[in-house]
């Protein structure tokens, strides 16, 4: 440590500042954890920067994603090496939010007046729900977001290992039958049965947020959020030049707060796509290790890929081997005469179970029905 620490009070101050700095970079630290950190430093005796480093690592950090940012903050705070500034500030703001209707927007059709979209809002729901997202103006999108929150996306069920009781004569429930027999001096009067229960299949959503998907992705992220709210055991990621996990960010109930958090977390909005690498990253760090095993995976992408399409094929094959089902929703599929010409799409097709549209509210509704069957 190159900063001289005189007394206990100064050390406390340092520890608190350090925790504050970590919080400012987005690491979530509860009050309890920061107290633990203080206790841990006391326990270890703050003799060396190494002790403080590991005290913090084992109390303040509890997921590997945060380790690199921890290292940077640690270096800057305790060792005075500043590599932090550019890292934190370079996140470009991303705008998923369409709340302020008075604002001008790229989505707004200039030929329409305020009155026009009011009529859309109240009388043309059916037309709106089949309208391609890329043709919707701001007010129509607003209306769609409202509808989207109404979608309840149940997903598929699978057999659970946990048994539940049943009236049908299935597996004899020895335990329960014997237990109830104690009332009748050990005579089994009533037989109890059990059968395998069911549980929801995990659902993994991968949303392509590259430049070519921009118009759709802004809408689909709302859909992703609505799906996550509707049920548990959903995981969400964005695919762009890199893979970003949004499960935590999107778990917030309030859509605006959730999308704000998500937009803060995603660094590569509207960038290029490296679809293959993104799926590979998912496979390596999350999917194959367990998250995708037996799960339903929904990929929302147009299949445009700047990377090597062989990687897409290989990674999709890998993913397909462990999943229960892969559904690919491609907004472009709704175009008449659509052919999967995009390299990435063509490479992925053989490893997909269902290939569907995903360009309008209706198509999303169909999608949720497909996935509930």
């Amino acid at each position, binding site marked *: 440590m190159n900063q001289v620490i005189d007394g206990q009070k100064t050390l406390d101050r340092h520890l608190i500042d350090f925790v504050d700095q970590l919080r400012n970079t987005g690491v979530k630290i509860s009050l309890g954890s920061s107290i633990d950190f203080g*206790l*841990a430093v006391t*326990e270890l005796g703050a003799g060396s920067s190494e002790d403080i480093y590991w005290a913090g690592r084992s109390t303040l950090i509890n997921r590997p994603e945060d380790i690199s940012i921890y290292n940077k903050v640690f270096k800057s705070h305790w060792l005075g090496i500043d590599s932090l500034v550019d890292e934190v500030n370079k996140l470009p703001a991303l705008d998923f939010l369409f709340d302020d209707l008075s604002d001008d927007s790229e989505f707004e059709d200039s030929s329409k007046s305020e009155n026009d979209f009011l009529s859309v809002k109240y009388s043309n729901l059916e037309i709106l729900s089949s309208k391609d997202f890329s043709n919707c103006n701001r007010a129509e999108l607003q209306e769609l977001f409202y509808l989207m929150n109404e979608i309840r996306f149940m997903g598929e069920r699978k057999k659970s290992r946990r048994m539940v009781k049943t009236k049908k004569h299935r597996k004899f429930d020895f335990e329960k039958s014997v237990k109830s027999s104690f009332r009748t*001096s050990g005579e089994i009067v009533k037989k109890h049965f059990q059968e395998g229960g069911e549980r929801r299949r995990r659902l993994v959503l991968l949303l392509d947020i590259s430049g070519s998907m921009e118009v759709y992705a802004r809408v689909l992220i709302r859909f992703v959020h609505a799906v996550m709210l509707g049920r548990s055991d959903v995981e969400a990621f964005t695919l762009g030049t890199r893979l970003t996990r949004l*499960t935590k960010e999107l778990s917030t109930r309030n859509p605006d707060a959730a999308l704000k958090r998500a937009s803060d977390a995603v660094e590569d909005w509207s960038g290029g796509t490296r679809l293959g690498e993104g799926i590979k990253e998912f496979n390596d760090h999350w999917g194959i*290790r*367990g998250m995708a095993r037996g799960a339903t995976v929904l990929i929302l992408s147009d299949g445009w890929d700047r990377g090597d399409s062989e990687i897409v094929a290989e990674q999709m094959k890998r993913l397909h081997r462990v999943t229960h089902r892969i559904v690919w929703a491609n907004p472009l599929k709704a175009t008449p005469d659509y052919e999967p010409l995009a390299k990435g799409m063509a490479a992925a097709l053989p490893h997909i179970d269902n290939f569907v549209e995903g360009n309008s509210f209706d198509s999303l509704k169909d999608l949720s029905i497909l996935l509930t069957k």
Partner: protein
Amino acid sequence: MGLRDVSSVEKVIEELSTQNYLADRGLATAVFLSLRQNRPLLLEGEAGVGKTELAKSLSNWADGDLIRLQCYEGIDSNQAVYEWDYARQLLHLRTAEASGRTEDVSTDVLEGELYDERFLIRRPLLQALSVKNDPPPVLLIDEIDRADDEFEAFLLEILSEYSITIPELGTYRSEVKPIVVITSNRTRDLHDALKRRCFYHWVEHPDVEREIEIIRIRAPKVSLLLAEEVSKAAAFLRGMDLYKPPGVAETIDWAEALVTIGVDDLDEDSVDETLGTLIKYREDQERVRSRGFDEILSLVRQG
């Protein structure tokens, strides 16, 4: 001297190494803190980096029992805490009936007899809380991410109170708190509440130097030269972007396999023959083979 009175991180490293476990400073710090503050240790990391092994070494050091709870989907309190031995209870009733005791004693008394400790099957969690005297047991809760959310919440309750209530018998409070090690493979996020209870450590693959030591300790038949070569090769393969980079467990297996077939210095044939002990995915094996072994071999031979 008990584990919980361990005086320093260095002491933890030293004690674990006498148990043939080489911990780096970070892991040792997490162990030290969780021992001193009586809190669970949560370990995450790639498969095969020695998470489970640590619990075994801790129990050897403590000279106490290692009680292992392997989690799986659908695990519930019957498998984790306790279960009544219904078959024996039924037998007890039948015996009472046959000997004519049922006529002398009331049903209540008879039913009371059935819920006696001797008909209780203790599952790992209850076992861990029932230890009466030092040394403390080590409770290993393995792969907690496989269990479902509800079970995790239930576990959290037990880990904060260190007590279990059995309706028919009353509350069991642990007299000697177990040393708790929890491992997770991160197939899903654990609840923040559980994470907050624990000291956390992300276990990494060891560096070459440490791995050489580990191989030498775990597989004493392996020569220093071979251990060096094996560790360097493993480090190289871990940098190769494989689906499943080899863990320490695999390198130890590999080194032992090489010794078994009488190899004391890596060459192309021996690597090719034994690759399956080190790399378990066909795609990975193909990738390594198609790249050829020259690179690895020239690398491991360097000073």
